[in-house]
């Protein structure tokens, strides 16, 4: 295999891995907007929180796998508490309250993280089993990135089965299209909201835990991921998981190849793309038009 192809493939793997992480975060944002009509500004904050939880769990137990399991769950519980005690009292008071509240929570997470763990970078080692490279068909792949892709696909499959094959999935999908009607049918919507919010945050948590060894853990993580996930959701359209998946992969690849070829313009390209999409598809590629 010549080095040029190898470069393409390895950049592709990087892009795919990042795209998958992006999807995990964006799908949570999309799910919460689609169902609860809340734009969760603190979502990326939870993503970062989970990365820190992972770091802390590894520091305590030394076991990455345990951390990967526990950190997202702990983050999800934090999210559920936020929904139950902060967002629920505000239900029905309009978009403004939700927006300010989630910004406030985001600020608190940011400040708390800086207070507890400081502002320095916290490096986290890739677990031993996944260090090094995997050789397939004469090409080398970094094992951990392959693992990240696999993990994201696994989560995606679980989510798809949950959403499309189970009763609770049916309820969630119905609530996305009309939650008043679902409520009228006797389903406990507030409880469902807490559950879905928790799942959304859990997804961000999985992404945070998975990305911790790739990027080191630092307080700027939230801002970076928040922006990217936000663009994905905007381009894909609110509430569309399929759209979020495709656009995340596209952006992941665009990012990694962009850095390769037009490194000066790579950060711009996503925003340019978004601006163009917003002009021609005001509701995103897969979004339904919102009621005004």
């Amino acid at each position, binding site marked *: 295999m010549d080095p040029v192809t190898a470069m393409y493939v390895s950049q592709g793997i990087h892009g795919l891995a990042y795209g998958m992480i992006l999807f995990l975060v964006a799908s949570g944002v999309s799910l919460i907007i689609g169902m609860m009509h809340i734009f969760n500004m603190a979502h990326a904050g939870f993503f970062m929180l989970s990365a820190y939880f992972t770091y802390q769990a590894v520091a305590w137990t030394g076991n990455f796998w345990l951390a990967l399991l526990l950190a997202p769950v702990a983050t999800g519980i934090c999210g559920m508490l936020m929904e139950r005690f902060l967002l629920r009292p*505000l239900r029905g008071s*309009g978009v403004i309250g939700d927006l300010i509240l989630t910004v406030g929570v985001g600020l*608190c997470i940011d400040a708390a993280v800086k*207070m507890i763990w400081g502002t320095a970078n916290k490096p986290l080692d890739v677990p031993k089993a996944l260090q090094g490279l995997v050789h397939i068909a004469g090409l080398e792949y970094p094992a951990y990135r392959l693992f990240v892709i696999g993990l994201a696909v696994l989560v995606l499959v679980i989510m798809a089965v949950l959403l499309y094959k189970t009763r609770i999935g049916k309820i969630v999908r119905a609530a996305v299209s009309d939650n008043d009607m679902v409520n009228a049918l006797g389903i406990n919507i507030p409880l469902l909201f807490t559950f879905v919010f928790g799942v959304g945050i859990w997804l961000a948590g999985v992404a945070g835990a998975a990305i911790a060894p790739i990027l080191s853990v630092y307080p700027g993580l939230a801002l970076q991921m928040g922006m990217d996930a936000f663009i994905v959701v*905007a381009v894909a359209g609110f509430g569309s998981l399929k759209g979020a998946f495709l656009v995340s992969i596209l952006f992941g690849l665009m990012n990694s190849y962009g850095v390769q070829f037009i490194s000066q313009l790579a950060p711009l390209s996503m925003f340019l793309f978004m601006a163009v999409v*917003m002009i021609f598809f*005001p509701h995103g590629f897969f979004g339904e038009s919102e009621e*005004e």
Partner: protein
Amino acid sequence: MKKAYLWIFWIGLVIVLILFPKIVGIYYTNFFIAFAIMAVYSQSINIELGYTRILNFGHAMFFGMGGYSAAQALSLIPGMPIWGAVLCGLLGGLVLAALLAPLVVRVSGMACAMLHVAFNALFFMLAMKVRPLTGGEDGISGFPIPPLNIAGLISIDMKDPVNFYYFATAVLGLSLWLMWYFTKTPFGQVMIAIRDNPKRVNYLGFKVPESKALVYIVGGAFAGVSGSVYALFQNLFSSDATSGLNSFQPILMTMIGGIGTFIGPIIGSAFFSIVEEVARHYTDRVELVMGVTLIIVILFAPMGFMGFYRKLKAKWGKAPSLPKI
């Protein structure tokens, strides 16, 4: 009777503003200027967001345009008067808004918000990268602050903070008054009508996109004014001031104060400035204090302070409730 009270209030306010630097000293004078800049900046977004429902989430572009225009005008053109710099700032914001308006007014709702976020990010990147024009992260600094000449007779040194305070207060106060006047014109009623029901305004024969464009341009121009005063005040304008964060802050201030009311953004910026100042005095965790304050305020007053006030008022008498944005 009521009018007389109003006059007393305004005269009292002017006297307080004139005596302000003498009473509180230089530190709080500068604090007040920073607050006044934010108040005008928030008000300019309120005109778009609160009165007309143009979801402009990239207002820092216009703030930045104003700041850069003023700073560059002062550093490039010798003999540029200080009001000329403010005028340049106004024009900068106005021109950028006029350029974007045809595009922006055709998309509505969330798409408009997203478009602005994208534009803002592009603007921020350009501000970082195009160093000859903007100075990048370091910004443009050290440009001369010219004295204010009145009719070629009196020359007032603007490097003196107290003199600058009077100048800034006059400019910002005038801006606020102009914006207030703007919302009270018949066109102001059209703005509110567009917010509440654009389709119906269209049926009534008003041109919705053109009206929105006008509001957008006015908002951009006043953001430019606040940006230029900010540049003069700091004697520095860097790319930080054009970031998405700086677009979001005036929106938060407006929402905390009460969106769609004229007094709301002013209360909101005062509240933000004071909380930040107090927090800075006692702790270095300003972010945490801000976050907790936001949560507490919004749990008790979901529509901001003005919403809370009107709710209280509605308990005793009839008062219009705040619009839902």
